[in-house]
């Protein structure tokens, strides 16, 4: 059946993508929280935060982008949960298809939906004065890191999507992720934080990812942050994938 893996995954991805394009509200909802945060931080709090010579919108955009992804993947979990709940997941599993294609379709759809939301948020940031002189390779690096982060969080979202017992449960895991950027270098420099909070902020994944993207946008050397960021993303991806596959195997028996 693996001979049909590509064909089946494409067919199933077409289906899940239609779920996204026919409920545009999910993309708007994904983008609206980060955009509101961006407006509030730039026009309300931003003036009081000292970020040196960097404009505040430039400073906080990387954190906002991560927040967009974190809120986007809760819909990935929701879509998968709905499939399991409605029984269509079982219908596909009882058909002569590449069974894992059902899961991959959701993963690819998650990447596409998040990409649309990211472009939307980026557009608003440009209107608000975000500017970057970054070259093509720096932009590609930013895109690559965001894609890797989305992929890691998508596989994380597969776990509640397959095993949650309620819609609320399927989406709730994303809330801590959405708020993780607050305790990082995303909105304020970590040096202003008290000891233990600062230690946490400097050692959690968001800070290294935010610092890397910020440096890439500002055409500054990324230093060791990029390796820490990549290690976090790949590590999270591997762990999430292993647990997601375990949940999947339990589901299909």
């Amino acid at each position, binding site marked *: 059946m693996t001979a049909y893996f590509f064909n089946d995954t494409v067919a199933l991805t077409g289906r899940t993508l239609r779920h996204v394009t*026919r409920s545009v509200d999910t993309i708007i909802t994904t983008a609206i929280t980060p955009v509101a945060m961006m407006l509030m931080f730039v026009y309300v709090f931003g003036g009081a935060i000292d970020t040196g010579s960097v404009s505040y919108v430039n400073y906080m955009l990387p954190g906002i982008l991560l927040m967009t992804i974190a809120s986007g993947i809760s819909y990935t979990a929701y879509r998968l949960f709905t499939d399991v709940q409605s029984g269509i997941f*079982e*219908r596909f599993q*009882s*058909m*002569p298809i590449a069974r894992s294609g059902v899961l991959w379709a959701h993963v690819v759809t998650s990447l596409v939906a998040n990409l649309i939301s990211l472009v939307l948020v980026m557009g608003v940031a440009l209107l608000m004065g975000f500017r970057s002189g970054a070259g093509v390779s720096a932009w590609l690096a930013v895109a690559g890191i965001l894609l890797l982060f989305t992929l890691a969080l998508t596989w994380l979202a597969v776990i509640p999507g397959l095993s949650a017992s309620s819609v609320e449960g399927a989406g709730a895991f994303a809330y801590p992720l959405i708020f993780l950027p607050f305790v990082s270098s995303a909105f304020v420099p970590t040096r202003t934080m008290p000891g233990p909070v600062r230690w946490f902020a400097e050692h959690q994944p968001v800070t290294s990812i935010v610092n890397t993207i910020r440096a890439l946008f500002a055409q500054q050397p990324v230093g060791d942050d990029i390796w820490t960021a990549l290690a976090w993303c790949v590590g999270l991806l591997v762990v999430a994938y292993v647990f997601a596959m375990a949940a999947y195997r339990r589901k299909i028996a």
Partner: protein
Amino acid sequence: MKAPSIAGPAIRVQGLKKSYGKREVLSGVDFDVAPGSIFALLGSNGAGKTTTVRILATLLKADAGTASVNGFDVATRPANVRESISLTGQFAAVDEILSGRENLALVARLRHLKDPGAIADDLLRRFSLSEAGARRVSTYSGGMRRRLDIAMSLIGDSPVVFLDEPTAGLDPEARIEVWNAVKELAGCGTTVLLTTQYLDEAEQLADRIAILHQGRIIVNGTLAELKQLFPPAKVEYVEKQPTLEEIFLAVIGGDDKSDATGTTTGGRR
């Protein structure tokens, strides 16, 4: 792609056992289903009907015993089993966001058939869904959904079809529509395993009926055989009152379905 039908029983279940934790749902189930027949698995809620179907559809592993579908063991040849079956009813479903036509075309594509669009249009016609074909399934009535569900199961001409409580939650009119669809299916030589908790449904449709009770098959036979097991029929003269179902169908006028009216006027087989 299509698995050819084989000689011998289309479905063979022997000593099937399944427990969820300490609760034993199936405690040694045995039955055979002859090719091209309609077999009804009758039982109350929680009797283990769905568990049996899920094991046969390779969605669940049995704890003990063997089961084969179309000659393939469900445990060792699950891919061949999936090529031989279609699952619909309680645990199968339709995509609410897609249109009826898109649902059918998707299944045709997943079964790697040529011209999925034409297959979809043909089935929409056969199941009187042509007009609704372009609409999202979320706007369909319960009966239309179930008809679409069954239509999706016909794609690829699987030799064995599982219908898990196909008429649960349907109104009488929709129930008759589903019955007609099932009869049409069996008429084409498909083996149908039907689970139901409605006695009249088993009586209407099935060639053989097995009663699943507390994890075991306690009775298995044709309707005529089942009737012989029990006290002989007494001849009584009773004025024939129409049932509420017959009144309901007569009042709302089910004339648009010739078969349906046939049933309402008492033409049961």
